[in-house]
């Protein structure tokens, strides 16, 4: 029975990584930048909910909508004020800038909201379902369901909509896209806004389960690993990568030793990078000489 519980608990744990990986991949696909501060952006959005609800006295849904709205503006700000001016600098500079954004958010939240963890309201009524000895919680079911809805929506958007196609065109060949009339800067700004809105949605799903503290943003590192596992370019790959990482961690801890959990999980990751550098869902990149 424990193996079923391992799966039932490992999947939601992995979905938390998937939600982070999804937007790291989205931003990377769209703008080539790896956003190392994305986890902290999620934590920031969660703090926004607490600020609006606790200090503003607003109902939870108002706080969530406000957080989504402010996050969207913040995403636009990241692009317009930081990454757009840096667009001609080497990629490494832009990546360091995202690290700086993450650290500034984390320490800013610690300074303003204090170092202690904050209680976060549950989005769904906390309930535990006993499925023949396998326990599943309502919060975890909601997280998994919403993660799949977001992925499906993004997937359809890129496959079916004209705007989605424009984004793919701008990503693959910015110069060519601008010649055919696509505003590359608008596309990039759009990607940052979408990723930031998803950060706020993820925040509401994650914070009640992970406990809101300035350190919650460190889940960004796990999200980054999940993205690599999934191939770094594939949105479904990011979801599968996250779930796999969650399951590998859980199984390694249970069957081998909890002390060696990370050693095993990250050895698997290194193995994937060595033997399948394009990840599980990525396409191998061939260069003609």
């Amino acid at each position: 029975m424990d193996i079923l519980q391992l799966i039932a608990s490992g999947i939601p744990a992995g979905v938390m990584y998937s939600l982070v990986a999804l937007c790291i991949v989205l931003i990377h696909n769209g703008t080539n930048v790896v956003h190392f501060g994305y986890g902290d952006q999620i934590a920031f959005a969660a703090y926004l909910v607490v600020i609006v609800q606790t200090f503003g006295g607003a109902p939870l849904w108002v706080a969530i909508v406000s957080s989504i709205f402010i996050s969207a503006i913040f995403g636009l700000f990241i692009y317009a004020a930081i990454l757009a001016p840096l667009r001609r600098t080497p990629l490494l500079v832009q990546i360091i800038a995202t690290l700086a954004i993450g650290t500034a958010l984390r320490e800013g939240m610690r300074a303003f909201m204090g170092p202690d963890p904050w209680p976060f309201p549950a989005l769904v009524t906390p309930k535990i379902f006993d499925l023949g000895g396998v326990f599943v919680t309502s919060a975890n079911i909601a997280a998994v369901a919403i993660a799949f809805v977001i992925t499906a929506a993004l997937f359809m958007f890129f496959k079916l909509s004209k705007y989605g196609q424009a984004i793919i065109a701008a990503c693959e060949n910015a110069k060519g896209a601008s010649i055919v009339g696509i505003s590359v800067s608008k596309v990039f700004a759009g990607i940052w806004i979408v990723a930031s809105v998803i950060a706020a949605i993820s925040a509401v799903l994650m914070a009640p389960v992970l406990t809101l503290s300035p350190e919650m943003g460190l889940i960004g590192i796990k999200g980054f690993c999940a993205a690599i596992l999934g191939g770094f370019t594939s949105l479904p790959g990011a979801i599968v990568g996250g779930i796999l990482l969650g399951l590998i961690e859980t199984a390694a801890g249970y069957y081998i030793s909890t002390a060696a959990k990370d050693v095993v999980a990250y050895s698997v990751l290194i193995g994937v990078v060595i033997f399948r550098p394009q990840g599980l869902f990525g396409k191998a990149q061939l260069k003609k000489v």
Partner: protein
Amino acid sequence: MRRSGIALAAAVASTGLWWVSSASADSTGVTDTAIKIGFVGSMTGPAAIWGSGNMAGATLAFEELNAAGGINGRKIEFITVDDETSAPKGIAGFNRLVQSDKVFAVFGPSSSAVGVPMKATMAKSEVPVLIPTFSSPLMTEPPTKNIFRVGTLNDRMQGRGIANYLVDHEKKQKIAILRQSDEYGATGGNAVTERLKELKIAPVANEIFNASDTDFTSQILRVRSANPDAIVVYGYPAASSIITRQLREVGVKADIIGSSATSNQNYPELVGKIGAGTKFVSNLEHLPESDFPAMKKFRESFQKRFPDLARQARPALSDVLGYNGALTMAEAIRRAGKDLTREGYMKALESLDGFSTGIALPAYLSADNREGNTKMYIAIIKDDLTREVLPGAIEAK
């Protein structure tokens, strides 16, 4: 010849006496009107949970003392350094306080991860250090002449106290341990195991987790398979709260007891209703939110002085221990008298035999003991998510 021999002997003796008196009369950082006290602690980084509280509590205590005329006519000048939860920065900060600012004594640091690597530097400096919060036994066992601790209970004793409570008081036999992978969790968790061994009990499970982990399914399922009747969770608040929730979510009904790191007042809300009944070690007989007169007075002064921290539902344990440590320091400085020297101050600290500030457990220090507190209480999270300290102190030796 004889006369000159006597003169020589007198000169040698007086030189010797001068050396002795200069060593014992080290009054660096003391003037007729002020005493420089240095604070090194974590204002930023993960240990800011404790560092910011230690500084806030101490600031309030020293401001109150200064407003009341100071100690023996001298005002406290409080110089602070942020170690950013980094041991190298803690060492550099300590050296700056001692060498550049030339403080009389040091208060802090606030976490084991920073404090333990600083110990050699502290010992070499011979500057008196008073630790208000962090709980690594390595700081006081064996005792170092210039390093003292009050208020908190060290992790080795805390682990033993938890084992004593579960076996002697609660009559538990099947005990599982879930401990953090770092020095903090290892010291506390291993102390529980050692004490259980002395009581002829082997833990039914002994699992390890990382403080920054967000999922603990594997540890929890291993613990569940062992079918314990009590579970010790020795870790920081965020991880401990997730573990407690996840244990209940997979149907584990055993008693759960956390270390003093989970004794912050917002912990019950972090765990939620599902965690009602969870117990934790309390370093205080009266919690910061209690209406015990001394605590109520402190809470009101604190919230008036730090309205931004009051907004974060403080004072918390670290604020209380910062205030308690600073008042203990002040008492020793007062006892050391008008001719204040480092030696005199350390002797005065050693004379604190049951000294109490009224808000934390009393300090029992002596010439051969640098660990002020050896007792703890057990508190419980009630159904309405308020907290209650259970009666009866537990001897943690």
